[in-house]
C-alpha cells in the first residue's frame, strides 16, 4: 500500500469517533479484532488456515481478566503485555505439535485444541466462571485510575497505535527472509527443504507471531468489553477471523483492518436495523467478495485503481500472475 494512502487511512480512523457518533467502542473492537485477523493473515501467507486461533485470543483475554481479578485492577499496558506473552507461549506449545501438519489437518488440529480449551473454560467454572465468564476490572493507565468515558478514549488510541505498529512490523516481517520462507511453504515446501531451511521451524516462528497478535487483540477486546466468556474460544470466532481476513484481503496487512472495520460496521448496523438477518447479510457479503473479488476489498480497490490509471495490458496481467 502507498504510504500516503496508509497515512490517510490512519488519520481518518483517528478522527472518526468525532465524525461518526457513538462509534468509538465499535472502532476499538474492530481494531482489536483486526490485530487477531492480522495474525491469521500471517499464517495465510504460508497457505495454512487455522480454525482455532480464537484459542490465543481467549487465552490472552482470560489472562487479562485474571490479572485484574487477583492483582487488584491491574495496569493496562501490563495486561496487554501479559496477554500477548501468554498467547505467544501457548503458540509455541501448540505450534510445536501443529506445524507438522498441513492444510485441512492443520486447520482441524487447531480447531480441536481451541475446542478443548473452550470446554475447559466452560466446565471448570470455579476458576473460569463457566459460561457466564468473568468480569474484567477496568485497569489503570500508567498508574492513573480513570472513569469510563476517558478510559474509552485512551483505549481507542492505544488500540490504534497498536494496530499501526503491528501493520508496520508485520509488513517488514513479511518482506524479511523469514517472511519469504513463510510464503515458500505455500508455493513449494520441498524446494525450501532443498535450500536447507526447515519448513517446520519457519512455520513455528510464523505461528508464534500470529498467536502473539491474536493475544494482543484478545487483551484489548477483554478490556474494551469488560467481560470474558468461553465464547472467545469458540470455533465460530476462529472462523470469523478467517472470514474477515478474506473479506479484507489476505495479501496485505491493511486488509485485516479494512476487513475488520467493514465487518464490525456491517454487523453493528445490520443487527441494529435488521436484527434477525445480520448473519444472512454478512454471509451474503462474504459470498459476493469471494465470487467477484477473491483478493478481498483491498485487492478490489487496488484493481479498480489500476484499471482507472491505465488500460489493462496483457503485460500487467502477466506480472500479476507471476507475483501470485
Amino acid at each position: 500500500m502507498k504510504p500516503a494512502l496508509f497515512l490517510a487511512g490512519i488519520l481518518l480512523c483517528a478522527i472518526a469517533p468525532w465524525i461518526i457518533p457513538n462509534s468509538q467502542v465499535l472502532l476499538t473492537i474492530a481494531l482489536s479484532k483486526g490485530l487477531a485477523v492480522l495474525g491469521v493473515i500471517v499464517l495465510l501467507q504460508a497457505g495454512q488456515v487455522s480454525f482455532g486461533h480464537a484459542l490465543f485470543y481467549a487465552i490472552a483475554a482470560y489472562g487479562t481478566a485474571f490479572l485484574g481479578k487477583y492483582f487488584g485492577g491491574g495496569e493496562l499496558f501490563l495486561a496487554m503485555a501479559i496477554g500477548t506473552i501468554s498467547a505467544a507461549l501457548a503458540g509455541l506449545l501448540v505450534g510445536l505439535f501443529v506445524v507438522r501438519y498441513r492444510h485441512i489437518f492443520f486447520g482441524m488440529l487447531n480447531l480441536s485444541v481451541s475446542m478443548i480449551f473452550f470446554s475447559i473454560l466452560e466446565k471448570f467454572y470455579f476458576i473460569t466462571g463457566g459460561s457466564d465468564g468473568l468480569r474484567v476490572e477496568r485497569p489503570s493507565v500508567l498508574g492513573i485510575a480513570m472513569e469510563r468515558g476517558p478510559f474509552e478514549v485512551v483505549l481507542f488510541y492505544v488500540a490504534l497505535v497498536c494496530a499501526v505498529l503491528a501493520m508496520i512490523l508485520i509488513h517488514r516481517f513479511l518482506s524479511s527472509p523469514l517472511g519469504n520462507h513463510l510464503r515458500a511453504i505455500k508455493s513449494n515446501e520441498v524446494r525450501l527443504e532443498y535450500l536447507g531451511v526447515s519448513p517446520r521451524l519457519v512455520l513455528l516462528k510464523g505461528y508464534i507471531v500470529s498467536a502473539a497478535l491474536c493475544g494482543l487483540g484478545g487483551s484489548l477486546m477483554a478490556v474494551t468489553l469488560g467481560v470474558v466468556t468461553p465464547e472467545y474460544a469458540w470455533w465460530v470466532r476462529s472462523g470469523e477471523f478467517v472470514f474477515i481476513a478474506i473479506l479484507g484481503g489476505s495479501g496485505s496487512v491493511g486488509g485485516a483492518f479494512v476487513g475488520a472495520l467493514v465487518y464490525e460496521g456491517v454487523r453493528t448496523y445490520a443487527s441494529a436495523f435488521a436484527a434477525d438477518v445480520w448473519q444472512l447479510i454478512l454471509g451474503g457479503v462474504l459470498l459476493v467478495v469471494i465470487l467477484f473479488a477473491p483478493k478481498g476489498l483491498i485487492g478490489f480497490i487496488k484493481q479498480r485503481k489500476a484499471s482507472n490509471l491505465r488500460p489493462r495490458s496483457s503485460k500487467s496481467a502477466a506480472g500479476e500472475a507471476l507475483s501470485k
Partner: protein
Amino acid sequence: MNAQILALALFDGLSYAALVFMVAVGLTLIFGVLRVLNVAHGSFFAMGAYTTASVGSAIFAAGFAPWLAFPLMAVSAILIGVLVGGTVEKLLLSRIYEMEDVLQILVTFAVFMMLEDVQRLIWGVQPLFESTAVNLLGTIEVFGIVYTKYQLLFLPAVAASVLILLRLGLRHTLTGHLILAVTEDREAAISIGIDAQKVYLVTFIVGASLAAFGGALASATTSVIPGMGADMIVLSFAVVATAGFGQIEGAAIAAVLIGLGRSFAVYFYPELEVLMPYLIMFVVLLIRPNGLFAPVEARKI
C-alpha cells in the same frame, strides 16, 4: 463402577454414535468426491431436525396416524437434501472448485451463517420437541435397564443399513462406480467422458440428505434448538478427521469410538464430556497424521 452404569454408557454411546455417523458419513463422502470441507453440513442436520419436528407436530395434531413419523423423517431428509443441498451446490459450489481450499471452506462457512438465520426466520428460537416415533416403539429392558427401543435398536440399525447400502451402492451400481472414479482421479474420469459436475451434484445431494436424515432421527430424541447445527458440525469434523478424510467405513468406527468416549466421560468424568471427541482426535492425529484409516501417500516433489 458397576455393570449397569457400564451398560448405560455403552447404550448411550452407541445411539449417539449412530447419529454422529449419519452426519459424518455425508461429510466424508462429499469431501472424498468434491474435495470441499463442507461447513454448511451442520445446517443440513439442523434443518432436517426442524422440518421433521415442525411438520410432525402439525400432522399429529391434525390426527394423522403416528407411524407416519418414520416416513416423514425420510421425506424431510430428501426434501432438505435436494432443495437446500442441491441449490447450494448448483448455485455456489459449482463455481468454486478451481479456487483455493481456504476460499472453498469460507464459501461453505458463509452458507452456514446464512442458513443459521434462515432457520431462525422460519422456525423461530423456541425449542421444538416431537417424540412420537420414540413413544411408538416403546421401551426394552436389558440387564435391568429400561431403555427406549428407538435409541437402542432403531438408530444403530438405521446407521448400519446406511453404511451397508452406501457400500453396496458405491461398489455395485453405475452411479457408484462413477462416483468412485471421480474420487480416485478427477482428471482421468473427466477425460473418459464422465460428467464430473453431475457426479458432484448427486454426491452433494446424497451427503446433504444423510446429514438431514441424521437431524430427522435426532429430532425424536432431543429438543430442536438453534445452534445444534454448529455443535454437530465440529463433532463430525472430529469424526471425519479421526477416521481419515474420505473413509466411509472408517467414519463408522471413528463415530463409535468418539460416541463411546463421550458417553463414558459423561458417566465417569462429566467435565470431560465436550472435550472427549477432540481429545480422541488430537491423540489419533498425533500418532497417525492422516487419520486412522487413510492410505499412505507418497511424497511428491
